[in-house]
């Protein structure tokens, strides 16, 4: 269990680092898929099966394909031509490192996460899986936000059309 966690955590993080470090956007995209796979595994490890699957389907699948598609479509040069300016790089690294340090400090100092992974009851029976539970929540309590999200998606669709159609008829 712990061992697997470290494997997937490493996968996730190295994938992430790959996104940042690779000069070729395509490679970045593939690193990202890798990272998302690791993340999905972590989700599953947290007993969040639906979320883990969604992560793979939506993120690693749909979204990253979209990214790749656009990268290919625009035929972006393989690597960014210029080298990173040293100052920007250095400063950014300092900021990011201090951010991480702070997050770790918060986590350790606050003791918020000292808890061990609590046991949960196994599935109570049919219709009690997390998919069921989330689905029920979504379509009962969170019915309204779902509708709003529908509007959001409509807006996004219209927007994408308006912004990228070749010529408006």
């Amino acid at each position, binding site marked *: 269990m712990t061992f697997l966690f470290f494997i997937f955590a490493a996968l996730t993080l190295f994938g992430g680092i790959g996104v940042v470090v690779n000069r070729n956007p395509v490679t970045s995209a593939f690193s990202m898929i890798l990272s998302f796979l690791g993340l999905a595994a972590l989700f599953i490890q947290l007993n969040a099966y639906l979320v883990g699957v969604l992560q793979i389907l939506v993120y690693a699948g749909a979204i990253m394909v979209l990214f790749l598609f656009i990268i290919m479509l625009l035929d972006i040069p393989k690597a960014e031509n210029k080298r990173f300016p040293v100052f920007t790089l250095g400063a950014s690294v300092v900021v990011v490192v201090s951010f991480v340090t702070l997050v770790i400090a*918060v986590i350790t100092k606050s003791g918020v996460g000292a808890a061990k992974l609590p046991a949960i009851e196994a599935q109570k029976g049919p219709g009690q899986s997390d998919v069921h539970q989330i689905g029920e929540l979504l379509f009962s309590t969170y019915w*309204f*936000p779902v509708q709003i999200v529908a*509007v959001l998606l409509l*807006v*996004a669709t*219209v927007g994408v059309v*308006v912004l990228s159609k070749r010529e408006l008829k």
Partner: protein
Amino acid sequence: MPVYFLEIIVVALGLIMLLVDAFAKIKDKRCIAWTGMVGLLVVFGLLFNVQWPESTDGAFWEFYSSNDQISLFYKGIAIISTLIVLIMAADFRHIVVAQTADPEKGAHPQAGLGEFFALPMFACAGLMLMASANNLVSIFVSLETVTITFYILVTYLRRNVGSLEAGVKYLILGALSTGFLVYGFAWIYGITGSMQLSEITTALAKPEVNSIAALFAFALILVALAFKVGGAPFHFWIPDVYQGAPTPITAFLSVGSKAAGFIVFLRLVSPFLASDVLADKVTLVLATIAGITLIMGNLAAMPQKNFKRLLAYSSVAHAGFLLMALASAPTKSSEGSLSPATVVTFYLGAYLLMTLLAFLVITTVRNSIAGEEIESYKGLAKRSPFLAFMLIISMASLAGIPLTAGFYGKLFVFKIAADQGNWTLLVIGLIGAAAGFYYYLKIAVPVFFGNPAIDEGEKLSTIHVSAPARTAMVILTIAIIAAGVNPNLIIGLFS
């Protein structure tokens, strides 16, 4: 009529507008905008007719703050600003068409207008929802609805370099702030175990609350919210985006988005302020941000030469005053002083009036004068005394000259700051207000003292003001002055 009908009606209106645009063959697409305007007026009327249920157990009410005039007021702000944005958008149509479509390549002569008119309706619905959202989920969803709509609208002039650049900047920084917001939400959820603001408040108010984690969550949320309302140093997107976006959208951003941002700000910050453990640090941080914002916004506005950009800095400056009010939340020992919610809400109401008036003028003028540089307003008073007068009224109000609504806003802010003994902030606020006199009146210089840049012998053309715009301007002016005499006209609407 239950209050959520309002959002539904607005969305339905937006859908109708989209459908009309898609399927009906209409010559003048301004009809679509007019439909929206009439619809919004009706919705605005309905605003005074909503009912609150006996019990708030129903599915919708999870996401609505209960019986709350303030949220209705913010809905009103959203509706009015959308209405006026539509008026502006209708006047702005030539520029929209010119910079989105290329008629030579077979584009419709009014291509892209329908969506330009319809999208604000959805943003409006999002803003209205934000106004009453009291659950992390609904806050997030409505906020993102608004934000994403704005990504589209800001970039709408896709052949215009400025609009595109503004869109990209807004997109990247907006997404960044969303990231922080979500991260913060996750932490709050982790600490309190709830998405409901009332429960979060209860959880945070407990003395044994994990203060470090809570403050960390607060920091993350504050970042995102400060970004939305334009608090320094998270305001950097504002000048660039305001300048690049289509003018009606700039107005929308500056009024609708900011107002909704502030109500969310109020809602999300109040649990932290209500907690004895956290309140001190939270207040101090807010005060610091308010101070920086005041200085940044006001002083950097002084040398500006582009009118829209100047208004962007002014928007930052006003955010500073609003934050100043937030940072002066009364402590337990000072009962009976003004509540920041009242001050902020009034301020935003006044801000709506004066900013929209200014943008109405800009949009109208833009039809006759190319460019939004302050210099290009030379001689406006001679070409159109009406517009010049409107402009000076709105500038006076923005600058906070008494007997305009803007003055009461500042007065309340100063009062609440003085009540709480926030002397440093008060001094900074004074400096800011003084700088405001300069940069707002700066616009009067070309308008009144300059001569129109026309060739010899050419006849001085007047500037056409469309009927809806004219009506709106007159109403706004009257409102500014009336509320400048009697603030109760605004305050009475929400208290």
